[in-house]
């Protein structure tokens, strides 16, 4: 029991971070159908740029903004310069995966060439420790949860209340139909990459703050949990992605606490492979949509 | 007991809450061409898929050549003699036309790993025989000039012919044709009609054909099964069902 509460606390924090990333991933994947395996590298790129801003003395809220903007631009360019052209060339889903992996490899190693192989740390202090119901949080971690909540709220408002958001949801459900209804799919796709990129950047920043230090390969480490959370939640369903993220994060932290910490990453592997082999359409999508139908 | 090659009793299929096919019963007599018609969404393709084995029925039975068939996998149904063609082009694009036909043939020496490893000398004569058969088919369907062309490069009409020839290489007892005339120009349509009619009359191949092209149905089908909204609403010759009020209503509503 003494181990359970702190583990749940860790699960909440990493779940919050994972939720931001998973929502970003699922929005983009849902609208564009591209499995962006370079997502982790965009996260880390945003973290690196935020590191530079941090070294220049910028405050935390500015760092969040920087991360969001860098993430948005990087993702947008990634699509505009790489994925988009290949899709128009008619390359097919597996070809796109190879393209994404190649992009991931290039980005990881380019980051290492530019920034070196050292581990870097942001200067944001962890702050005091708070004890809540047996769980332990630092100020930074509470801040992360707040950032996650605010970000996800903003996304929800965008998706539900704005025309762009509705257009994105329409394109994710049925691109051909959306086009005939006058939705300008190219703009929607660009916006999806930018919004998802912003989420990606924020997730990257919060991830490295929580982790402590990072380097060029750190992004790759979190990719599997993100994809697992997004697919578990049903591709294109942000609410599902949040549930998926909490599930993966909790399962990882609990298994690390009660079993072998070395296998923490293995939980995410297992979730992803089981969901793909057994129920690739996800588990939470139906739960969430049924709730919406009833409510 | 009837001597139908294929008979279907109370066949049904649900997808979650949606009933695609309910209580469908009909028979396909030996060496006959039966048309399966009905408005869009009537469940015709679903019935075809269940017979071909790519969908499991949720109720009812299928019996083929005297044996129970329901729930078999597509390749097992095919090995028993049920060969289906597809609505959308499904050629093996990176194989040549001739190779497509050879790929459709029943397994001979060389089709297994062991046979392959024993080398060309082991399977050469079987293969030569298959090549002869394939060339014969190509000649019969006037496709000989395209023999060494990549199947992906053929026109859509030629791809239809290819699928038909490929199905014939598999030595079918029952051919399931899924809209063989859809999107085909009238001249080629007539040609295909001719081929199908001769395949039935001369080679004794039985056919069940889903089609919207009423002219073709009238000209070559011996009898017709009409479906609407998942149910069989009429059976008989074209003349009989034409006067059937239920059929007229279905087409007006559906």
């Amino acid at each position, binding site marked *: 029991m003494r181990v359970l509460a702190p583990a749940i606390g860790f699960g909440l924090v990493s779940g919050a971070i994972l939720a931001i990333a998973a929502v970003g991933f699922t929005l983009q994947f849902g609208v564009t159908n591209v*499995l962006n395996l370079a997502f982790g590298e965009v996260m880390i790129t945003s973290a690196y740029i935020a590191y530079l801003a941090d070294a220049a003395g910028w405050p935390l809220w500015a760092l969040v903004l920087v991360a969001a903007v860098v993430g948005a631009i990087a993702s947008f360019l990634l699509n505009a310069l790489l994925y988009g052209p290949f899709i128009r060339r008619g390359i097919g889903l597996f070809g796109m995966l190879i393209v994404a992996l190649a992009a991931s490899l290039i980005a990881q190693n380019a980051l290492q060439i530019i920034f070196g192989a050292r581990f870097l740390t942001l200067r944001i202090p962890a702050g005091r420790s708070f004890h809540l119901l047996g769980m332990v949080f630092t100020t930074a971690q509470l801040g992360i949860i707040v950032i996650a909540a605010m970000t996800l709220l903003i996304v929800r408002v965008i998706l539900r209340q704005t025309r762009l958001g509705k257009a994105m949801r329409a394109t994710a459900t049925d691109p051909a139909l959306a086009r005939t209804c006058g939705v300008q799919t190219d703009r929607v796709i660009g916006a999806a990459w930018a919004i998802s990129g912003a989420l990606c950047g924020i997730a990257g920043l919060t991830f490295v703050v929580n982790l402590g230090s990072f380097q060029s390969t750190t992004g790759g480490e979190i990719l599997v949990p993100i994809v697992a959370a997004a697919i578990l939640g049903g591709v294109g369903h942000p609410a599902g992605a949040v549930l998926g993220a909490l599930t993966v994060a909790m399962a990882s932290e609990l298994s690390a606490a009660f079993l072998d910490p070395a296998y923490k990453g293995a939980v995410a592997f297992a979730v992803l492979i089981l969901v*793909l082999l057994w129920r*690739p359409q996800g588990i939470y999508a139906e739960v969430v949509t049924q709730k919406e139908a009833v409510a | 007991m009837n001597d139908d090659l294929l008979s279907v009793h109370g066949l049904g299929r649900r997808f979650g809450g949606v009933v695609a096919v309910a209580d469908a019963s009909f028979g396909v007599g030996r060496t006959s061409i039966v048309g399966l018609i009905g408005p869009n969404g009537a469940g015709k393709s679903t019935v075809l898929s269940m017979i071909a084995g790519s969908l499991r029925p949720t109720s009812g039975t299928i019996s083929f050549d005297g044996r129970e068939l329901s729930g078999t996998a597509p390749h097992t149904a095919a090995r028993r003699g049920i060969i289906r*063609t597809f609505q959308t082009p*499904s050629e093996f694009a990176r194989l040549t036309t001739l190779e497509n036909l050879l790929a459709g043939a029943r397994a001979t020496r060389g089709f297994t790993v062991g046979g392959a490893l024993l080398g060309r000398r082991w399977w050469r004569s079987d293969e030569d025989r298959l090549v002869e058969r394939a060339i014969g088919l190509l000649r019969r369907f006037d496709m000989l000039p395209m*023999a060494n062309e990549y199947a992906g490069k053929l026109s859509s009409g030629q791809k239809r012919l290819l699928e038909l020839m490929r199905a014939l290489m598999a030595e079918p007892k029952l051919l399931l044709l899924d809209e063989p005339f859809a999107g085909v120009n009238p001249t080629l349509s007539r040609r295909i009609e001719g081929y199908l009619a001769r395949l039935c009359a001369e080679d004794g191949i039985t056919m069940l054909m889903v089609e919207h092209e009423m002219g073709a149905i009238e000209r070559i089908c011996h009898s017709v099964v009409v479906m609407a909204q998942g149910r069989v609403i009429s059976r008989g010759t074209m003349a009989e069902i034409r006067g059937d009020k239920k059929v007229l209503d279905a087409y007006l509503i559906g």
Partner: protein
Amino acid sequence: MSEAWQFYISTLLVYLGVNVMACWGLNLQFGVAGLLNFAFIIFQAIGAYAAALVTLGPHDPDSYQDYIFGAHLPFPLPILAGAVAGGLLALFVGVIALRRLRSDYQAVVMLVVSLIAASIATNAVGLFNGAPGLSLIPKPLASTLDVSLVGYQWFYVGLVAVCCLIVFVITKRIQSSPFGRSLRALRDNPDAIAALGGNVGTLRIRAFVIGGAIAGASGALLAGFIGAWSPASWDYRETFVLFTAILVGGTGNMLGAALGALLVPIAFLEASRFIPSFGRPGLVEALQWVVIGGVTLLFLWFWPRGLLPERKRTYTVPEG
């Protein structure tokens, strides 16, 4: 030719042979049968470990290496053990993980299999000695052959050449047979081949297992040559290198796969060890990966069929 040069050339040739074998195996799975085996490297790795285990001898509790099994099998059984291990692992993985999934999901499943295997190899200490890997693997026939060090190198080149020849015959016969044609049909349209009587599952598993066995044999040869093997060999990026190799050389074409093996893992990666290390440690390696990624993208864009595309198989057909 000086001894140093002989060492270098013979080493390159051994690596070339092993990579050509691996590329032929991957080509059979991916180029011919269309199987998206993004876990390919684990079959080579398990072959290497199997060969190591059956030559290191039973585990000695006092030694610093901790592993399962262990035997002293004579040459050439360890190579066969590698092939069998590769084939069995392929059977296991294939039965579980090969599904009718959209192609990118299928590749991700295989990628995750690869990551899981790497994780197990690194963390399960009693299995294959965990993170440090296995070392001091005896070289095949080293004690019985009375040759100099350089002589042994050339012997190994010959050994690899013979194995390459065997793999060549196997793969060539499969690819030019009706079975190979069924695999290519499977690649192009699995539903259609099923509708014609082909058992998709069986065809897939057969191609997967044969490819896995070839990978395992290549791993066994490599382990015997290097004398050591580590979990880094299970890294998914190694699979990526081989995919790049066959994409560059030409998928579905054996000569293309061999050419790809020559150009990518050998000419680019191995030969560039010759370049003096400049800049920070790790800089050259990082640049190599950037180039590999870049080459992949270039070829996917300009020459998606590779340098030597799949040959058309024509038959003599009478005139009308």
